[in-house]
């Protein structure tokens, strides 16, 4: 069985990276760099957020939650789309690595989703006077969390990895079709009693520093997601390819360290 590696993926094309064997070391190499970028940008972003950006004249200091709230919310939506993308690629092209990527991304997406909800709830208390309202945006974020949890619960519940991959891919795609539907339906449902809408406007200079901080934090979140996904996909690859020779060699290398 050691000799069951797919020989047909040895070509020089880009598809080469779709081979777990090729991708494994690449991921190991790149992950620390992305982690480093994430760390540096977070420090810069937080510095801007706490020490450069001014106090908001309406909300006071609470608004500083924005520097994690918004990047987390963006990331949570983006990650789901990326997962769905990889799932589709996996189903259509039958590449094992894409399923693995999708599964490696899911927990991070769910965590960002939770962070967005949590920070939003804490932000809501001083600004709206309550932790939760059934506002359209909040609600669709909550449903997104359920989609993530459903995906993870399903893939965990199926023990055979290949089955789990494909089943997860189906639910990720069905969910992705539904995300926009959910978003608009929720908005429609709750336009009448839209909760307090908050404007964060002040002098333009301040808006720019704030925007800067937010964007830098958003990029940091991107880099963090990529790093963690790479780190997480590596053991998954080992697990799946454990019968091949190269994994044997890799395990010996890990063991001797």
């Amino acid at each position, binding site marked *: *069985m050691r000799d*069951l590696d797919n020989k047909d993926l040895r070509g020089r094309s880009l598809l080469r990276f779709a081979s777990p064997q090729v991708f494994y070391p690449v991921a190991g190499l790149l992950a620390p760099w992305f982690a480093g970028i994430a760390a540096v940008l977070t420090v810069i972003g937080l510095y801007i957020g706490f020490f450069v950006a001014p106090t908001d004249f309406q909300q006071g200091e609470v608004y500083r939650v924005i520097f994690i709230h918004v990047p987390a919310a963006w990331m949570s939506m983006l990650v789901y789309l990326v997962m769905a993308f990889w799932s589709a690629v996996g189903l259509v092209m039958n590449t094992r690595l894409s399923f693995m990527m999708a599964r490696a991304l899911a927990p991070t997406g769910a965590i960002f989703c939770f962070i967005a909800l949590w920070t939003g709830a804490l932000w809501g208390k001083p600004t709206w006077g309550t932790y939760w309202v059934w506002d359209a945006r909040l609600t669709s974020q909550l449903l997104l969390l359920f989609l993530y949890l459903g995906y993870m619960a399903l893939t965990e519940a199926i023990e055979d990895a*290949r089955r789990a991959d494909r089943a997860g891919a189906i639910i990720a795609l069905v969910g992705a079709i539904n995300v926009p539907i959910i978003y608009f339906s929720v908005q429609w449902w709750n336009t009448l009693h839209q909760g307090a809408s908050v404007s964060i406007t002040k002098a333009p200079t301040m808006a720019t520093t704030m925007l800067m901080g937010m964007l830098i934090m958003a990029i940091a979140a991107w880099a963090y997601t990529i790093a963690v996904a790479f780190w997480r996909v590596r053991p998954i690859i080992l697990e799946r390819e*454990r*019968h091949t020779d190269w994994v044997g060699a890799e395990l010996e290398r890990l063991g001797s360290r």
Partner: protein
Amino acid sequence: MLAATDLACLKGDRLLFRALGLVLDAGRMLRVAGPNGYGKTSLLRILCGLSQPEHGMVRWRGRDIRAVRDDFHAELLYLGHAPALNDLLTPLENLRFALHAGGDAVPEADCVAALERIGLGDQLDLPARVLSQGQRRRVGLARLFVAGSRPLWVLDEPFTALDVAAVADLAATLEAHCVAGGIVVLTTHQDAPFASAPDVLDLAELAC
């Protein structure tokens, strides 16, 4: 007509077999042998296309079965461990459904004849729930007596729970099918009373 090349089957951490190849032409009967847990059922399911091998390929009339799935299935009859019996339906209804759903439109009279042939004449109107173990198996096997048009039979332990007379009858039927140009792949731990011993593929020899 049925050929498998270089099959490998991995279950969890256990590699059941690898580099398994076989070629079966019209008129052959193959008995897959081996102790419990050596992968007979797993092999049969791979041959039917119900599960995917870790490596290798199954061909029917020279074409990959994944590519010609529907055509292949139109020529295949698989009976597994589970009898595919609904407990609320009668044997007759169960058989008729199995045939129609498989795309064979068989007249009612033929279904009744097949069931009577296999010894369920008295149980035609009972719900399958109350049948005895052996009677349940027989309902599934009744398909062998109507689906004459399908050349490839894949049977997982067809003799289980049958009484002595039924075992002999079934063995004769399988041999007749091969004589008529069909192919039979089966597993069994019992010594079935075949007139001429079938080919044997012993998984114990292949085990990794």
